[in-house]
């Protein structure tokens, strides 16, 4: 097998897998340049949260486009992969397992560390900064000046069913998508069905996964920025509001240095819900007349930053999944997955299940707690 010598694979075109690795590729160089351009120009658009220069938006988009070109080259080379070249491990301890499956698991180790770092950040701030609720109840604030405290997003989100709806639906969406991807794997690897039926089933399941991932990000946008109008008959259950308010509309923002929420207004609390806790310091101070009550203002930038960046990192992983799924769904629709290379779906599936696992932790601790 010394056909390597006369084999000059193109750096652009579909790879001839009969020759195995290595093969040349322009993709790494192009993608690296794209990433560099993107990181460079994003810093030109914004600076310390202030909009600086619109002309850089074009450059950022160009950066993304370059990354996408690189990715296309990468996919184009992979497209012909039919499972004919699938090296397996040798020796202790992975003997017999596909090499790339081991690589995906190794990759997941680093992902675990990424999310552990984010959670460590969260824990440090969550336990290190007093929560806004206890600051409010302690009465150690005066109306008109801002206090620094930790306002968990869960406090807002878990406060009503309507706020919770996007996050809850998302949880189901991710779990269903985890299920559909293993179904795609099952049918791609199933030997006793004919080719056309396999193609249809795999495409359908991968397409469903894609759709659920897109639904996830859409709902996330609704929850973060857009909000959602409610039908008339539901208004009374939503404190009379006509929409599900987004976190943006609630003022839960990374630059919220004077966050004011109705929950931290003595008048609102007195007139809604349970009223002030009669044993709280604030209630006693107001009874004594040493505290005039009113609206508490809070600097919640740190809590908002941890919330948006941690859930945003998870969202970025979902976005990465969508990009991968787009290619895979296309390949599946052309009958690209057969029992020989069904394990490719498993590689992506492992990543996708991991994203689901992260959500299993992110959801309770960022949305509910």
């Amino acid at each position, binding site marked *: 097998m010394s056909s390597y010598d006369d084999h000059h694979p193109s750096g652009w075109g579909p790879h001839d897998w009969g020759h*195995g*690795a290595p093969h040349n590729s*322009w993709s*790494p160089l192009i993608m690296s340049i794209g990433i*560099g351009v993107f990181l460079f120009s994003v810093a030109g658009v914004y600076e310390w949260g202030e909009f600086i220069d619109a002309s850089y938006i074009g450059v950022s988009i160009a950066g993304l486009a370059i990354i996408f070109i690189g990715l296309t080259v990468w996919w184009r080379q992979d497209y012909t992969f039919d499972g004919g070249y699938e090296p397996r491990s040798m*020796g202790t301890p992975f003997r*017999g397992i596909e090499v790339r499956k081991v690589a995906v698991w190794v990759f997941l180790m680093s992902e675990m560390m990424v999310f552990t770092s984010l959670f460590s950040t969260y824990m440090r701030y969550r336990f290190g900064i007093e929560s806004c609720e206890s600051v409010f109840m302690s009465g150690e604030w005066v109306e008109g000046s801002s206090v620094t405290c930790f306002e968990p997003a869960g406090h807002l989100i878990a406060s009503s069913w309507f706020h919770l709806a996007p996050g809850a639906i998302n949880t189901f969406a991710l779990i269903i998508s985890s299920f559909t991807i293993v179904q795609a794997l099952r049918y791609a690897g199933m030997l006793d069905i004919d080719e056309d039926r396999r193609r249809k089933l795999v495409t359908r399941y991968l397409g469903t996964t894609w759709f659920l991932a897109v639904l996830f990000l859409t709902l996330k946008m609704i929850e973060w920025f857009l909000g959602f109008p409610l039908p008339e008959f539901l208004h009374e259950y939503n404190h009379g509001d006509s929409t599900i308010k987004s976190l943006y509309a609630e003022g839960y923002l*990374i630059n919220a240095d004077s966050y004011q929420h109705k929950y931290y207004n003595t008048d609102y609390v007195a007139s809604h819900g349970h009223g002030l806790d009669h044993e709280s310091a604030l209630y006693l101070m107001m009874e004594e007349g040493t505290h005039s009550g009113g609206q508490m203002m809070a*600097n919640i930038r740190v809590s908002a930053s941890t919330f948006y960046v941690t859930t945003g990192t998870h969202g970025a992983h979902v976005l990465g999944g969508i990009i991968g799924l787009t290619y895979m769904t296309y390949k599946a629709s052309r009958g690209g997955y057969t029992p020989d290379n069904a394990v490719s779906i498993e590689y992506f599936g492992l990543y996708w299940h991991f994203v689901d696992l992260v959500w299993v932790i992110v959801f309770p601790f960022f949305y509910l707690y």
Partner: protein
Amino acid sequence: MRTKIGRSLVVLAVLSVAMLIAPAAVSYPTGVNGVAQTGCNCHGAVANSDVAPSISGLPDQYNYSEEYEIVVSFTGGPANAANSNQGGFNLWVSDGELAPIDATAQAYGANEASHTEAGNDQTSWTLTWTAPSGDRNVEFILHVNSVNGNEDGNNGGSSGDLWNKLSAKVSPPILVLEEADPFVVLSTLIVVSAVLLIITLTYVFYRTNPESFTWEHFAPWISEWLTSTDHKKIGTLYFVAGMFFLGVGGIMAMMIRIQLAVPGNDFLTQDQYNQFFTLHGTTMIFLAAMPLINGFANWMVPLQIGAPDLALPRINAMSFWLQPVAALLIFTGVFSGSGADTGWTGYAPYVVSETAHLGTTMWVAGQIMLVASSTLTGINFLTTIAVMRAPGMGWLQMPLFTWSILIANLMLFLSIPAFGVGLIQVYLDRVIGTAFYDVSAGGDPLLWSHLFWYFGHPEVYVVIVPAFGVISEVIATSARRSIFGYRSMVYAMAGIGVVSFIVYGHHMFTSGMSPTLRFVTMLTTMLVAVPTGIKIFNWLKTMHGGSLVYRTHTLWTLGFLVTFTLGGISGMFFPSIAMDLHLHESYFVVAHFHYVLVGGTVFGFYAAIYYWWPKMTGRMMDERLGVIHFLTGFISYNALFWPMHRLGVWGMARRHHTYFVTTEEAMGALPMEAAGWNMFVSVSAFLFFFSNFFLIANMIKTVIRGEKAPADPWGGWSFEWMTASPPPTPSFDPHNLPELKDANEHIANEPGTLGKLFNRLMMSEDEEVAH
């Protein structure tokens, strides 16, 4: 096909040029020359020669501290007495002090003056300039606007106005040489080095086949290098990049040493000094040491374990190509004069403050890309070593260099996500305004220190452990016997790897972190000496009873043993909290980490270069030049870093742009001898810098007309010596892999406790067949 490659090359070239130009042109308006020369609020886009500015009253040579009355005026242009406004000016002076005489002019600080509202209807203005008290070449730069006073004239409307610029020079009483801007020097040197590198590479191409020195042949050659996924080609690329940045980092070190050669020097300003030591550290660690390690790892790991290539060749190419782009981002600051000035540790909250230079954002962005690169490298090497060992090669039959790369990548891979997350937080803080490290919003700067050092401490072992591997290989081959205590070597490295995650807090003893954690990290740090001591002992024992062959790589290895042990001993002062509080931020720390990083990593990799050069290029290196390189390098290196211990104990602070000596016995004062020692250090630094030119000369010389190397010039016995020099592609035939046969086959294949456990968990042999 060929035109396609040509076209893509053009596109790439345009993109790279755009990347280089864009930062200087738009991102940082201050530019290389600083704010002064562009500080004109000029009316119109280009200067117009109709306007003739002049400065009168300036002497040719000034007297110290004398006050001169100068008149700034202009003629020509649309200005005339009938206009409501006639003109304006901006005068900048490099030294001395400007002051207005009447209400028509005003000064902005000592260096800049301009007209006032009242001065708008003048064409000449009078000022005083107080000459500096020292010897300086003083430069004046004058911008004038000639204004036609049209309707919108008062409100900044400037249609029809013209402007021009004038510069003048005044010399001091004693003539001094023109002072160079350190950034211009650095940028020039970087560009010159890059050009030299390109010329050398082109020459290499020419030498490969002198007849075919044409574009038609060059395009596929270069595109092969740009797209290759062969581990040997990527290894070479890493190696070239690493050597280039070793040079760049060295140039910065030399400029730092020029600054520190004499007390109270002002070759570098504080601001420039901050950027220089930041970029020196970043360049040396991330752009020189790591690529050099990766270069050898890429080259040797597949060869040593008998694999045809790495497990994921294209991912490997990706991890390389992220690095040059990242380097460009990191260096955008240098080319624009406002590079990162945060130190390589980038401590919060300074790193997210607006006082930190704009270049810091780009420095962070570049680091994010390096993190991505290291993660991909980690996946690749861990997978390769775990799954692609040749038949017969169990874990405890792997060569020690491969083991060291495995341990290093494991540490790097598991720790770098913490750094990456920290960097992304900083990037977002600086760009979109999150508040992770904003103290006023309750952010905790110590969090950054934790995330950084959780990565940073394993990182310093990541750069030293591969050197351990190299030394083990070289010493065993040179002593012509197998390494003493192979298993203890492996366990020692693994022990260092695990402990490195617990000890990181010793970098933060003075930061005010939890006392419990301080105690834990103090104890574990002291523990690190144990595995390191085992290794040193094993190396010595390997030589004992062996018959040492003194080749250049052996010499560097012996040098490593001396310097690394010294560095290790000075390191044992720091785990003790009380001692650390005293020595923290002093030159003692600088001496320690240069002893282990230069005396350890760099010496180790010099040994690796001499050891594996015949394998990589197929040419023997010149031994005589090699010995000269070792002697000059080793002596000047020790002269460079040894006195720093003493300076540190005296109390010379690191990261300060200058120092002062005094005869008084005051707190914090350096004795007079410190000045002499600093000069000695600086001279030695230059000697060490230039000693490396012997290596470069040796490389170039031997590649062009070195003696042809045999497959195994040193008598090594690991797999890489079984291939031809240079090895073919793929390195081993994937369908006919080499097999490791052990003389003690029975012992080698007897599974230990861990082996038995793995055997229970592993897929069984027959399942593998049925799969």
